[in-house]
């Protein structure tokens, strides 16, 4: 046992190693708390936009389109009056912080999408070269699986309507392997 041990144990100052560890821990804590801010500046949001035609009639043979999914059709029918919905265009993009994504849905319809602020996404609908509508929608709503639908009557046929549906594409759940028939025997 060191002859200096009794006094040094009681009246000693914190060792330099402890102080260095304390300073390093404080710096790490500051660095980690700024992690949230750093993550926001690099955020992205994948989006899918579909141009849909709503009509009570049948699909024309010369029009390149396909039926919307049964799930979307069911949701639309609960809100809108048309019987049939056909998807004319589907496009995907990834909205990035500080940049504007542009989607040409048709010759007459263009979308511009960007982050408005920390909570909201800004969608600009441009029709025939003119700014038609500017919409700000909560990002959290997209992440929950909700849809933003910009819609209006078809200028050429007021019986029909057009819809631009914006959604956040979700990864499909992996299909579980079918149970083996001979398990448990």
């Amino acid at each position, binding site marked *: 046992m060191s002859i200096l041990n009794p006094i040094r144990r009681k009246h000693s100052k914190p060792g330099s190693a402890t102080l260095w560890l304390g300073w390093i821990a404080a710096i790490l804590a500051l660095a980690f708390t700024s992690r949230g801010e750093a993550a926001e500046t690099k955020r992205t949001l994948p989006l899918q936009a579909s141009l849909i035609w709503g009509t009570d009639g049948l699909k024309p043979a010369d029009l390149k389109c396909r039926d919307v999914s049964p799930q979307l059709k069911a949701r639309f029918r609960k809100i809108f009056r048309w019987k049939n919905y056909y998807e004319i265009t589907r496009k995907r993009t990834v909205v990035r912080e500080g940049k504007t994504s542009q989607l040409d849905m048709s010759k007459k319809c263009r979308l511009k999408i960007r982050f408005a602020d920390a909570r909201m996404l800004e969608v600009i609908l441009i*029709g025939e070269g003119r700014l038609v509508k500017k919409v700000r929608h*909560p990002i959290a709503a997209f992440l929950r699986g909700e849809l933003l639908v*910009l819609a209006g009557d078809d200028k050429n046929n007021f019986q029909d309507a057009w819809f631009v549906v914006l959604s956040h594409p979700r990864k499909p759940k992996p299909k579980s392997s079918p149970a083996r028939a001979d398990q448990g025997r």
Partner: protein
Amino acid sequence: MNLKQQFEIQAWVDGELPWWKRRRVARLIESDPEARAEAEALRKIQTLVREEEAARKLPVSLERYWAELDAKIDRLQGERPRLDPGEALMDWVRLRWRRLLAPAAAVGAALALAWLALAPRTQPPPQADSYVEVETPLDDLGSFTFYSEAEGMTVVWVDAY
């Protein structure tokens, strides 16, 4: 031989000379008679100090000696002039701020690591989220907006486009 060389020879004899200087000083001692005489004199003094010094005996046992010294330190600390409470607190903080810093920083780092491990990593938290702002630059267009919570859908209907 200058003063610096004398100090280097002294350090060499004591075994405290940095390794990158030892060879140079050893060569100096071998080549310079004055340096060699200095080194020999220092070695003799070193031997004398180590071997001839009489062992000192304490009047009391080692444990009692340290206990008495400990008590004396406590007594001296208790005799310090009394401060008013504010000054006493500032004095306490001034003397111990470094001791407080280390555990406080460790607690802060632990909390930060816990947040890092548990906090969600993706998007901002959901907030009031059925609110949609709509701006219609064209005067001849109107619009109305409605939200269907059941269908999870916000519809912005543009009139007369």
